[in-house]
């Protein structure tokens, strides 16, 4: 686990206790980072909100779609393929998931 995700984990745990309601943005970010960790590039750049998924990581388009499927089930949303195609960064992915959840 990277320092970034470790820090996130702590913050998330804290937030859960404080808020004890719906999924937080930190939780979504943490889950995305965990899903993307196996695809971290060799230069050791941490995965952050601005990370461009298809460029900064060693993940191919099929693996992105598989990861999205995992996130869909984790957060109980469906992200259509055409929407996935428009998502570039980790931030955008997190925002999409939160927006879809809010709509439910």
């Amino acid at each position, binding site marked *: 686990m990277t320092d970034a995700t470790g820090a996130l984990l702590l913050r998330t745990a804290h937030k859960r206790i404080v808020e004890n309601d719906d999924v937080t943005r930190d939780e979504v970010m943490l889950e995305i980072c965990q899903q993307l960790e196996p695809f971290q590039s060799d230069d050791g750049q941490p995965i952050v909100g601005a990370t461009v998924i298809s460029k900064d990581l060693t993940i*191919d*388009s*099929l*693996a992105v*779609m*598989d990861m999205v*499927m995992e996130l*869909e*089930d984790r957060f*109980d*949303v*469906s*992200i*259509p*393929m*055409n929407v996935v195609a428009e998502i570039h960064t980790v931030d955008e992915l997190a925002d999409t998931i939160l927006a879809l959840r809010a709509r*439910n």
Partner: protein
Amino acid sequence: MGLFDRHAGLLDAYRDVRTTGADPFQIRMERVLSPTEAIINGKKCLLVGTNNYFGLTFDPSCMEAAIEAIRAEGTGTTGSRIANGSYSEHVLLEQEIAEFYGKKHCMVFTTGYQANLGVISTLVAQGDFLLIDADSHASIYDACKMTQAEVVRFKHNDPASLDARLRRLGDKPGNRLVVLEGIYSMLGDAAPLKEFVEVCKKYGAYVLIDEAHSLGSLGEHGRGLCESAGVLDDCHFVVGTFSKTLGAIGGYCVSNDPDFDILRVTTRAYMFTASPPPSIVASVRQALRIVTTRGKELRQHLWDNVATLYDGLVEQGFKLGPEHGPVVGVHLPDRMTAIGFWRAMLDAGIYVNVAVPPATPNGVSLLRCSLCAAHTKEQLTHMIEVMTGIGRQMGVLQPKLRVVGGQR
């Protein structure tokens, strides 16, 4: 940026593949001798990668029918059916396929790829929802790109995953079309169709099933998984191909929907391409007759051969797809091992397919074997021996351990 720069990654990977000395994607069959043998690199090879499930490519009655059709009607139709008209045989073939399934309507396409591409992309449009299995064939994925419908993938062969996605759509307006395959082309596994159909019924979704690899091989009459799972009536659209069991090329879709024929003037993959030539239509009609009359026997041969190869490879320690199927996928640890293994098999006179990422699900590297009713047990036993030898040599298989009785 040059036109080809975007393919740099693929070019590198392809260069790696070619370092093995043979290019698996540009194999030349110098002469095809029979459904199970061809000359490749000047050498007679056993064919175990041609999807020729019933071995009908050299059936004398199919060949005769094709030759007669050429003499009677020429080599090609030189245009699409909406422009040049249909030949009587096109219409007869469609009637015969519809009858074969007990469905009211059938449309024939020039290739199986076009059947999926055309039908799926036309059935759903903006405001509709298309739900596809994650391991769907490229023709299904390409259809997704041609429709304005929202496309959602569900986990391969996982009815609960489909259920969750249909549930999330809630009461949103719009049709739901679920696309499944009878047998998946890489690992030879069949869909849990009965369970999928239950889920679709629960949410009022339409079912389209592609029986490309299951026509002939499954079901009492060879209609495919929709028949063997007992849900033919619940499958609104059945797609299939002529290029595997029927030994030619082309595709079809059958349905009971009363308005189905409107697809003939809305489906671009049908409208803007030349119709199948007379020889193809004639040999396919004859091959379909064989499926009806001799299907049971050919199916038996095919599945006996599946058991011989699948069980024989498992016994030697190979890691295979999850179940018996006319396609047997052999898992190998990585791309280069798969290519090396494939090359060694070719050198030993056995042709199979090699399937590597990105063409495979979950990034797996596979040797893809497809069986034929015409394979002999000797041919397959020989193949298992050859593969076992290569597997040991390449370190894919552990040297055989002696099992001590009573201990595990």
